[in-house]
């Protein structure tokens, strides 16, 4: 009976399936029905952003959101290279003014020790307004609607959308000063507070005072009532930042979210009792003046940025670098930003779904993971990466750029065998620098996505030299066209001179055993660590891998217990100082908990570092950097490793795709053609129902013999 009913219903079901398959919208479309034709940028995030409060946000995945919402006073020019700061909310890029101990102004070239105070006076543009936000909502009498909520009023609210009223107001200098004071707030835990406290006048003192007076207060701390000598309001649109010493790189910090404006109303609103318990915090709901505002924060699924209706309308850059015109990246010159109305970031923890959805047109851009590399990229006869035919068929484009970062292997200079300035250890390190073949490593483990490093400074940053002048002569020679790694015989000679012929101690005959501390991230790291072992074995040196978990590794590094280790650094700002400080003695990790993980110390290098830090970009600074590089290349505290290359893929409907490795607010420059996207999505995602029908029919057919057997058994007699 049931079987007969099913058989009768089957053609109808198949017809329905067929009709639905012929419908307009692809079945695998993961978005709402009405979103396809809108100017929505679709992308991914892989980890929940921990902090969206500008005072504590410091990682790339957080900057993806905070960069679009908050507006510091300066930003990086979208198109120009080398990276250049331009005003964002400020009327001009702030320039330092120097003052002596007597309070008199000093010229720009004044010696560092004569400078007692550095002042940055910043004027912001008038008329900039905050995004609509309930913290800024005011009633008819001017009082804030949501600043004195009763517990029962808060109890029924869980998102900002639960507050009906919103308001806005003009951005003032006070908002910038208020945020600088927030760096010292005892409960906000800014990761850079201690560091900036070395420079900003009175910041450490304010932190101590707040900890003492407000240490147990979990409510609103009105920082406007506290004075901070290092940050003060001059007038509604002007404020000053005062530093205790010369720090020319400070202007780059002004482009980071730590110096973005935060209205005091935000703290007053979110600090009300019961707010934090309902996940209503500034850490979750940023409040800025930027082109976008975060309207949905569901990091378990997606984050949505929408155009800020109060955005003042910055314009697209008028000029770029040579080649930008040909790429079409100047076609939008002078047009009002932003071009995209909304941005949907979906949670994708795994590479395969992300890659598949990109190919299906559901993400506008994608990186290239190791798993998908061969599908996307092939090497041209001259060794250049190019797209595979499958990518070209879909008109997918590729952009590559060297990241302002370095991945290196460091030697602990406190170690009695591998560390120290004695020739024996130095020659050993030099020999290893030659033996560990990073060209091979990049080819095998990074699919060619990297550039062997000649020193700590990545390409594109002042101080890095291209060509013959930029090579590390300890490791490379110049063949007229490119650097050539010295042969293994050179390394063996150095090793023998160091007293380890064939990898054995010349005096005792004992084999040289070195220890590599690495973070064990599972099976993926094993081939790489084995590769390092083989590289050391080329010199007869035994390398013992001590793979450990992340926490133990950090502990070892803090105590200076590791002998050889793997590490990396991504630029905070595009200045050589941000890489050379990784080798500056007073930044030693074991002694001072700084970022100099090798605990390298060289008096000449340290003196040159202080000099370099203060010099403006020019031949003099380049000469100082050259000397510093010569010192560290000779001392070889690192195997210099490589600078990773970023490969970005994007669809034909995504415009102004020029990568900018320093700017975090690039979304406002991008363009979209949603009609083309919708057309391609339909073409690429027509469901294939045929195989499903065939499988169903086969399954039904295979059940027929079983059915007959069943019937036969039912009719069979007992004997």
């Amino acid at each position: 009976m049931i079987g007969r009913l099913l058989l009768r219903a089957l053609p109808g079901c198949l017809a329905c399936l067929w009709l639905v398959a012929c419908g307009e919208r692809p079945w695998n479309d993961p978005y709402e029905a009405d979103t396809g034709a809108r100017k929505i940028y679709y992308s991914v995030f892989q980890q929940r952003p921990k902090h969206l409060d500008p005072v504590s946000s410091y990682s790339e995945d957080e900057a993806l959101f905070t960069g679009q919402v908050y507006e510091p006073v300066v930003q990086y020019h979208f198109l120009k290279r080398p990276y250049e700061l331009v005003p964002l909310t400020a009327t001009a890029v702030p320039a330092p003014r120097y003052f002596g101990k007597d309070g008199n102004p000093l010229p720009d070239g004044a010696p560092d020790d004569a400078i007692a105070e550095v002042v940055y006076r910043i004027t912001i543009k008038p008329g900039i307004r905050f995004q609509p936000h309930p913290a800024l909502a005011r009633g008819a009498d001017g009082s804030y609607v949501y600043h004195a909520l009763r517990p029962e009023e808060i109890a029924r609210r869980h998102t900002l959308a639960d507050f009906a009223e919103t308001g806005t107001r003009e951005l003032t200098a006070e908002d910038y000063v208020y945020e600088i004071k927030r760096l010292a707030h005892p409960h906000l835990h800014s990761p850079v507070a201690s560091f900036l406290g070395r420079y900003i006048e009175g910041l450490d003192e304010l932190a101590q005072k707040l900890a003492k007076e407000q240490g147990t207060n979990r409510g609103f701390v009105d920082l406007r009532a506290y004075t901070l000598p290092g940050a003060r309001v001059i007038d509604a649109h002007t404020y000053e930042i005062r530093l205790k010493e010369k720090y020319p790189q400070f202007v780059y910090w002004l482009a980071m979210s730590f110096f973005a404006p935060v209205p005091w109303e935000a703290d007053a609103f979110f600090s009300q009792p019961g707010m934090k318990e309902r996940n209503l915090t500034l850490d979750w709901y940023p409040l800025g003046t930027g082109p976008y505002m975060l309207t949905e924060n569901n990091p378990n699924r997606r984050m949505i940025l929408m155009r800020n209706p109060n955005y003042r309308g910055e314009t697209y850059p008028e000029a770029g670098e040579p080649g930008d015109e040909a790429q079409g990246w100047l076609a939008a010159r002078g047009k009002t930003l932003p071009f995209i109305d909304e941005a949907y970031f979906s949670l994708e923890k795994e590479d395969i779904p992300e890659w598949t959805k990109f190919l299906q047109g559901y993400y506008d851009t994608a990186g290239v993971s190791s798993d998908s590399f061969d599908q996307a990229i092939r090497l041209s006869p001259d060794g250049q990466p190019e797209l595979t035919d499958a990518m070209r068929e879909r008109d997918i484009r590729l952009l590559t750029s060297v990241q302002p970062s370095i991945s290196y292997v460091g030697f602990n200079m406190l170690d009695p065998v591998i560390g120290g300035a004695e020739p024996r250890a130095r020659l050993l390190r030099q020999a290893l620098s030659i033996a560990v073949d990073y060209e091979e490593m990049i080819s095998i483990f990074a699919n060619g996505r990297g550039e062997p490093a000649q020193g700590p400074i990545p390409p594109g940053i002042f101080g890095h030299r291209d060509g013959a002048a930029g090579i590390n002569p300890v490791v490379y020679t110049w063949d007229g066209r490119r650097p050539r790694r010295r042969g293994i015989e050179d390394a063996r000679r150095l090793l023998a001179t160091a007293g380890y012929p064939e990898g054995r101690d010349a005096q005792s005959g004992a084999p040289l055993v070195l220890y590599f501390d690495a973070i064990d991230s599972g099976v993926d790291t094993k081939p790489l660590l084995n590769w390092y072992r083989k590289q050391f074995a080329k010199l007869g040196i035994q390398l013992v891998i001590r793979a450990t978990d992340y926490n133990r590794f950090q502990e070892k590094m803090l105590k200076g217990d590791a002998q050889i280790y793997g590490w990396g650094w991504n630029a905070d700002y595009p200045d050589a100082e941000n890489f050379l400080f990784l080798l500056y003695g007073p930044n030693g990790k074991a002694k001072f908990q700084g970022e100099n993980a090798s605990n390298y110390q060289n008096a000449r290098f340290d003196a040159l570092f202080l000099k370099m830090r203060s010099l403006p970009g020019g031949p003099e600074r380049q000469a100082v950097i050259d000397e510093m590089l010569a010192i560290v290349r000779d001392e070889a505290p690192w195997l210099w490793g490589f600078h990773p290359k970023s490969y970005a893929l994007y669809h034909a409907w995504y415009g102004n795709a020029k990568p900018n490795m320093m700017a975090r607010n690039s979304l406002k420059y991008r363009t979209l053609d949603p009609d083309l996207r919708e057309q391609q999505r339909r073409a690429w995602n027509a469901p294939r129902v045929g195989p499903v029908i065939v499988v169903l029919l086969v399954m039904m057919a295979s059940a027929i013999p079983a059915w007959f057997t069943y019937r036969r058994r039912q009719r069979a007699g007992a004997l």
Partner: protein
Amino acid sequence: MIAYLVRRLLYAVPILLGVNLLTFFLFFVVNSPDDMARLQLGERRVTAEAIEKWKADHGYDRPLLWNAGAHGAAALTETIFYQNTSRLFRFDFGQSDSGRDIGYDIRQRMWPSLAIAVPVLLVELLLAVTLALVVAFFRGSYLDTWAVVICVAMMSISGLFYIIGGQYLVGKLLRLVPISGYDHGLAALKFIVLPVIVSVVGGLGGEVRWYRAIFLEEMSKDYVRTARAKGLTERGVLFGHVLRNGLIPILTGVVVLLPLLFLGSLITETFFAIPGLGSYTVDAIREQDFAIVRTMVFLGSVLYIVGLLMTDVSYTLADPRVRLE
């Protein structure tokens, strides 16, 4: 029966304490409060002072289990273990180390977990029982042999293979459903189809083989022979007797799982980007968020204990011969 249940509930208290203690030890053997602070604050430019401030702010500046500096009961209560554990027994989960309300997150995330777990349980149960009955019916035939071979093969394949294979076949090649993601309400349907199919197929081999064994054992019993001897059809024997008696161990096995459905699946939710409690736990472990880890382990233990109690009760309902005393 009530006395039995009360006794079992009282047993639960030391069990939960033990589980908490074990979780606490395991977590803090691998992670120190300094590590947790470093992970929350980030790796760059973080000073020892910032770490100390974070620890003090989150209550991780206390001793782990015994506060030698305190007097009387405070030596026990002014510790990380006591401060964290005592709240759990009041079902006050507090805030995660990153500042989120754990109770709210759990309430939000249990629905996507249930949206996957409930259909998987029902469909798998129905399919597995049906197939096991069919296989049992054809016992000793080629169909039975091949069914067992296929079941063993399906059991031997890793769950990850089903997930990746399912995503490739259904999401990428056939383009029938989104390959990953989630939405609320009815829009969630298209997202849960694939994880449900993959989970059902992944678990079917083991289930069918187990249920087949149960049914075959029932079919070899005297009452089945008697039923056949009385002239009942094979269908009548199977559905009227074998299935009813075979379902007792199956249902009691299922009942213990019911409360755990809330907790979701760690792997499936991660691969399909389902915002459920399974991925919540995985994320918390990865981010070394002890507040969430201890809550989820505690909740898992409570639900497991509840499940075992429900199993005991269901025995009495399914088999009148069983009495709880």
